[in-house]
């Protein structure tokens, strides 16, 4: 469409992705790609299919048809483990934390560190978790409390730490700042830019236009399961995006904003 892609090879290509639940079409032949060091905003109404699309990339949901390429190779992402082996990490909107376990147990859930004898290496997991969490939030305490007792912000930090600890190449952030206060939101923005500099590709689902314009290089708008446009962020303004989100089309008089200004 209108986007001009960066020159190097894409990290992720999602081609003609289709998902239906019985007769209900959730994602309708959507294609999108992601390059290293790029933040792509995925926008749309609730129920527009953006979370659904991202869940397929994170292996939490199967595709009805279409294919996903990671580094040019076809990736069959049947389970979340499959996605993780491809370096695709996800910060879920629900955070996906086991409430009765502590921060370290959650951070390493499914990928526990073990001693030589195959026992859980609690000491090392706690030390590593502490280092990872303090890096994101210097005030992080209560490492040994079950996460149900932690604040929304702390829980979010655990979910973020879990995604970046394992050296993600592709990061999916599903409304990462929804539960956060202003300072923590700024922290997530800083982090996003830092990860971007490290060459990580990021899909950012967000309803917050400030975040989108501050962080994204490109935006992709979904409406009723279809991709109604992928644009460089310079080529659109807030009204254009709102028009795409609500109507599914650009304003009638639209020309790429980047050229006019």
């Amino acid at each position: 469409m209108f986007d001009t892609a960066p020159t190097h090879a894409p990290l992720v290509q999602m081609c003609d992705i289709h998902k239906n639940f019985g007769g209900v079409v959730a994602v309708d032949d959507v294609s999108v790609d992601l390059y290293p060091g790029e933040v792509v905003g995925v926008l749309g109404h609730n129920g527009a299919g953006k979370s659904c699309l991202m869940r397929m990339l994170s292996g939490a949901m199967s595709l009805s048809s279409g294919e996903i390429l990671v580094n040019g190779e076809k990736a069959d992402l049947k389970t979340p483990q499959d996605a993780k082996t491809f370096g695709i990490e996800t910060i879920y909107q629900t955070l996906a934390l086991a409430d009765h376990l502590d921060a370290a147990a959650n951070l390493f859930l499914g990928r526990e560190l073990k001693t030589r004898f195959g026992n859980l290496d609690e000491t090392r997991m706690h030390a590593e978790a502490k280092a990872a969490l303090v890096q994101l939030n210097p005030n992080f305490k209560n490492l040994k409390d079950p996460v149900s007792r932690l604040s929304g912000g702390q829980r979010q930090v655990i979910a973020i730490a879990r995604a970046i600890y394992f050296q993600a190449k592709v990061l999916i952030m599903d409304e990462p700042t929804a539960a956060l206060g202003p300072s923590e939101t700024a922290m997530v923005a800083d982090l996003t830019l830092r990860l971007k500099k490290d060459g990580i590709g990021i899909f950012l689902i967000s309803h917050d236009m400030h975040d989108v314009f501050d962080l994204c290089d490109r935006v992709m708008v979904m409406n009723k399961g279809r991709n109604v446009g992928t644009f460089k962020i310079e080529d659109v303004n807030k009204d254009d995006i709102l028009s795409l989100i609500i109507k599914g089309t650009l304003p009638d008089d639209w020309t790429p904003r980047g050229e006019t200004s």
Partner: protein
Amino acid sequence: MSDTELKAKLRFLPTGSALHKLSALITLLLLILAFSIMSSAFFSVNNGLTVLLQTSVIGLLAIGMTMVIITGGIDLSVGSVLALSGVVTGLLMKAGLPVMPAMALGVVTGGVCGFLNGLVITKMRITPFVATLGMMMIARGVALQLTGAAPISRLGETFGWLGNGALFRVVEMQANGFPKVIFPGIPYPAILLLIMALFGAYLLQRRQIGRHIFSVGSNEEAARLSGVNVDRTKIWAYTASGALAGLSGMVLMSRLVTVQPNEGVMYELDAIAASVIGGASLMGGVGSVSGSMIGAFIIGVLRNGLNMAGTSAFIQQVIIGVVVIGAVYLDQIRNRK
């Protein structure tokens, strides 16, 4: 004892269930104290060993039940699986198999029943309550059909060894030629219970499978998204519960030196009660083997003490029912504050 001190002591517990466990332990000690005052025969070595022996069957069941309850499930089939395992062992021995392999196959039978429970729950997506209710009827029916509802007896002295033997039994020959038991010894079932409880606690607290069991019960979707194989974890828990039911079947039938196809009716409820009294939450994510052992001994001591005090079996049921509700109520109060 301060709260933080307590927490530090039990810090590898995934939840703050320390308070519940402590109150259960205090309840147990109070019960022992009360019964000792009421009856002088209660607080004796012999009676203590009897309680150990009586509790070992429920205790073994409660270890597996706890694992299943932590995943957020329930296993109603253990009483029937216990009987079926015993029947299989009895029939194999009648067919000429020696005791050890026959008992091993009995435990395997229990494990297979548990494995089937796990398959039905994860692959057919049937709730644990219904799936294990079905297995409860199936296993009981098979056990009764195989034996024609008749007990299998004359299995030989070696069959009774596991249930009736004891370690460090000291017997002295008296001058008149009769043996005198100086120390009756620690019954093998109690030793078996201790080993299995330690092993179960080790698996739950120190191994990956235990961590996964807690995560599945705490938030199944989160566990799945984190890369935990939820189905495999559940199947593992039900298989363990089935195998432990098989093992407790061996202990019970061996103690009777007879295989009874109608043994173990309602045992699942005692095992569930033991787990719940010990702090396990039927909502999943909470529980411990040590708590369940305290729970099993509360039930065992209550039964034994009430028997010695001459309380009728019916009133005993009433009292145990009240204890179960009281334990869960305490848990609710703890969670509310």
